[in-house]
């Protein structure tokens, strides 16, 4: 992963993402309240957890340009990307998968993934070459990695919820990101699908060196895969650290994990 530096030199050593004093208010509600946060290059799945409405998705939305930041700054590879539009942030090397699968329902699975790859390859302004002649190998490879090869010609809208989530992950990977945000990647999946998906996420981190940040409600996933946890409550970080430390934190237990944790 360290060899895949792009978008300029990382001036802060191995810090890939730095969030400083990030704030966002909707009406009178503080959705993100002075959040400070850093991710190291190649870090595995620092998970953001928190109860519903804690501000997890908003946090992703602020980092990826979906919502405008009220105050604070976001740095990616040392570059200030605060309030950049989503397409520029994606082109710089940050991809995301949404909480509710966000795919192209009327295109085939193959076409969904190919679109992301062609965009990453900056070939979307080609006008006179049929798209089906381009990026074949890359698309098939990514479908294989994502376990979706058998659905290549299936219209994406009729895939199962789990496969749609996996497809969205494949679309995100098609952008060849350095940093990947996954918003509840296993939502709506069976136990087996959850295991397969998280093993894929683990492989992406370990074998391809991808830095991954995910939110998750399933605590077995969180504690099974994340090396570092950040706990949000009402837009504020209330705990941060390795899973054992977070599990033992009294405030976290009170607001989220419950006594049994």
């Amino acid at each position, binding site marked *: 992963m360290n060899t895949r530096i792009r978008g300029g030199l990382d001036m802060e050593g191995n810090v890939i993402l730095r969030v400083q004093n990030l704030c966002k208010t909707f009406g009178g509600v503080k959705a993100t309240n002075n959040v400070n946060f850093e991710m190291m290059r190649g870090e595995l799945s620092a998970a953001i957890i928190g109860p519903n409405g804690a501000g997890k998705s908003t946090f992703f939305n602020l980092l990826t340009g979906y919502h405008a930041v009220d105050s604070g700054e976001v740095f990616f590879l040392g570059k200030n990307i605060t309030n950049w539009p989503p*397409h520029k942030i994606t*082109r710089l090397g940050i991809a995301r998968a949404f909480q509710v699968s*966000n795919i*192209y329902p009327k*295109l085939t699975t193959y076409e969904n993934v190919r679109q992301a790859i062609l*965009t990453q390859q900056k*070939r979307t302004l080609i006008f*006179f070459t049929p798209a*089906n002649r381009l990026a074949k190998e890359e698309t098939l490879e990514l479908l294989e990695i994502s376990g979706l090869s058998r659905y290549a010609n299936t219209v994406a809208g009729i895939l199962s919820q789990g496969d749609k989530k996996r497809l969205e992950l494949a*679309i995100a990977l098609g952008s060849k990101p350095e940093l990947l945000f996954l918003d509840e990647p296993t939502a709506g999946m069976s136990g087996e699908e959850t295991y397969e998906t998280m093993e894929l996420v683990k492989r992406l981190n370990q074998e391809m060196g991808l830095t991954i940040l995910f939110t998750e409600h399933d605590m077995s996933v969180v504690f099974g895969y994340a090396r570092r946890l950040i706990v949000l409550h009402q837009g504020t970080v209330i705990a941060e650290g390795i899973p054992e430390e977070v599990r033992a934190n009294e405030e976290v237990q009170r607001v989220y994990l419950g006594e049994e944790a």
Partner: protein
Amino acid sequence: MKKYGWLGLIFVSALLLPLLVGEFWIHVAVEILILGLFAVSFNMIFGYMGQLSFGHAAYYGVGAYATGLLMVKTSVPLPICLAASMIFAGLCALILGYFCVRLTGIYFAILTLAFGQLTYYIIFQWYSFTGGDDGLQGIIPPDLLFSANAYYYFTLIIVTGALFVMWLISKSPFGYTMQAIRENEERTRFIGINVRRYMLINFVIAGMFAGLAGGLWGPFNRSIAPDLCNWQQSGIPVFMTVIGGPLSFLGPMVGSVIYTFLMAFVTGFTEYWPLTIGLVIIFVVLYVPGGVLGLIAERVKVFRSKALEPAPDEYSDTGRS
């Protein structure tokens, strides 16, 4: 290429048409081709980009006036006039589209309508240059294309070429990007596409081909008028696309065949053409919402799935009855 054999058949039939029908129907055929090109260009915005333009006639009209003015006031050859039509219509689409693509849905439709009407009034009022409400007369094609048949073949070649180029674009990475924007604008933004810029490029391409269609109209009709730009003219490709089917490339062309043929036929014995087309549109919207080509595609799919369905006794092996 086998699956496109029927297109070759249609093209050959079109080549033979002047041998089979009289001059009146050749005029109708030219109209079908020109308005079909106009409708297909409209569908690049409606069917492929997912936005309804109610002002597409602006570019058709600008194209018509570009060719008309050049032919009446200068001695520029027709092919260059047509190229100029595409350029001027494209420039107009670039300027107006810059504002339109910032909006989507009903706001996009209203803004395109407003700009369409604005273009109409400029042409209508600019008497010294455009001829105002008198329009431009005496747009005579060159001697080689003077006869109905010659102009028909000329139009057939130009329209076929234009359709081929648009078809290539629709199958290209750019075409798929437009479909991606139509399907899910948010996701498209999050794979790294500058959605507004791509919408503008598509808007300009559609405007250029509408301009080409407009450029073909003047020499065919020998005159043009500001009405070519107004909202009623903008409604024509909408009707044609709805009738033919917006989700297939040739749907608007099929719509043009039905619309123009019906108009020629119905106006031959009654003045209630608007009533007739109104009833047709109501019927299509209620009973054939995907348009004629959409219906055919659906029937073919059902027929093929039935053909692949196992015979009843084959089910018994898998425990089904």
